[in-house]
């Protein structure tokens, strides 16, 4: 469905993506793993043009784009087909939970207010926030804010949701509620790319795992292949580091 090829991106002298390719089929849950600084965020941001790649192509059904030269219209098109869930939620602080979810519909997609409200409420119900419609972000816990972030993404009915470490900013006791919501979406067939360090979650929902390091895709495969039979030394090292009792020989 979506193919990104040979994405390169430098910040000044620092080459962060050195030719990364990634393929997503409808219904895929692609988990991207990798040490901090390996370019995972930059890759996700290049897909919806929050970052302008230096080179690379994007093919999505009948859309074929050059990432560097994509026009404003193309950018708008890709942004309508995707949704992004940020590490720091990035909710609109001056809007209630409900308004946060409605805004993407009423402002960017010109959905009538009544209809947007209905869709937004359904999305908030889905993430378990039916009691929190009228709360401002400052009145919600981190886990609740991130669930609003997810509802906001779901409400616009995107073809793919991009998650950038959705639980990294959360206190440990709040991680579960957010992961559960994402798991539910995954099980319903939502196509998604998830950058995360939550290995158990990845093992459970990912049908494809991509390991990145130093601006390259080092290894990719099914969850079973990557977690249980990693071929690359760097993948093994990484898994050993984040899973102290990890034994890939099993």
């Amino acid at each position, binding site marked *: 469905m979506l193919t990104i090829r040979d994405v390169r991106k430098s910040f000044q002298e620092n080459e962060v993506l050195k030719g990364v390719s990634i393929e997503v089929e409808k219904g895929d849950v692609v988990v991207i793993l990798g040490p901090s600084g390996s370019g995972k965020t930059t890759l996700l941001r290049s897909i919806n043009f929050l970052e302008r790649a230096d080179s690379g192509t994007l093919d999505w059904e009948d859309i074929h784009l050059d990432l560097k030269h994509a026009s404003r219209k193309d950018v708008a098109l890709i942004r309508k087909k995707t949704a992004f869930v*940020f590490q720091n939620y990035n909710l609109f602080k001056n809007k209630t939970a409900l308004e946060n979810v409605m*805004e993407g519909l009423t402002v960017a997609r010109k959905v009538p207010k009544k209809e947007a409200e209905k869709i937004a409420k359904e999305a908030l119900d889905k993430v378990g926030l039916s009691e929190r419609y009228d709360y401002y972000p400052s009145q919600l816990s981190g886990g609740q804010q991130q669930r609003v972030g997810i509802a906001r993404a779901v409400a616009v009915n995107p073809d793919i949701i991009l998650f950038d470490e959705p639980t990294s900013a959360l206190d440990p006791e709040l991680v579960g509620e957010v992961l559960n919501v994402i798991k539910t979406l995954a099980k319903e067939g939502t196509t998604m790319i998830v950058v995360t360090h939550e290995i158990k979650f990845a093992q459970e929902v990912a049908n494809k795992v991509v390991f990145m390091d130093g601006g390259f895709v080092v290894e990719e495969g099914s969850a079973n292949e990557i977690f249980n039979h990693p071929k690359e030394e760097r993948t093994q090292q990484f898994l050993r580091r984040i899973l102290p009792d990890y034994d890939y020989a099993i």
Partner: protein
Amino acid sequence: MDIGFIVEYIPLYVEAAKLTLGIGLIGIALSLIVGLLIAFIQYFKIPILRQMATGYIELSRNTPLLVQLFFLYFGLPKVGIRISSEGCAIIGLCFLGGSYMAEAFRSGMESVEKGQEESAFALGFRKSQVVRYVILPQALSVSIPALCANMIFLIKETSVFSVVALADLMYVAKDLIGLYYKTDEALLMLVIAYLIILLPISIVAAILERRIRYAGFGN
């Protein structure tokens, strides 16, 4: 202190106060418009206009209003441009105030975290929609204390208008002192007149700031 003198000349001060306040308010309104326009030019990084805006801000902030008024009132006629006293006063105040208001708006807009802007872009907002729905509503509540302070500053600055022969409060006071040597009375009325104009504005500003602080989106 000559109470009779004070009572006799109160109407003169009232007229002058009306003029000061009227021109002050027009100047402030125009400053707000100029300030907002400049803040937009800077936010949208509009080429050429942006460099012009920077130049204007430097010029406006680094020259005294008195000098600006001299230029308008005595300088421009030399090249054939003649502007009335009121016109000079309004243009001068707006020229001065525009840059201060622009800075107030700009710092408010910059206070909104980049992340909110990005999530709006990711949802498909255009840049103008980001400004309208995300940045401005939050920026305004941050900017209001600075905007209020600027308004009070600008009203005070009106005290130099007498140099362009505008019959404002300062002008009347100087006149009375010159004609009758009633310095104490004239100055007392001048101070009171400015207090009567500025105190209500200060009080309204303080209330506004308080309400905004407490209306802060659920904080």
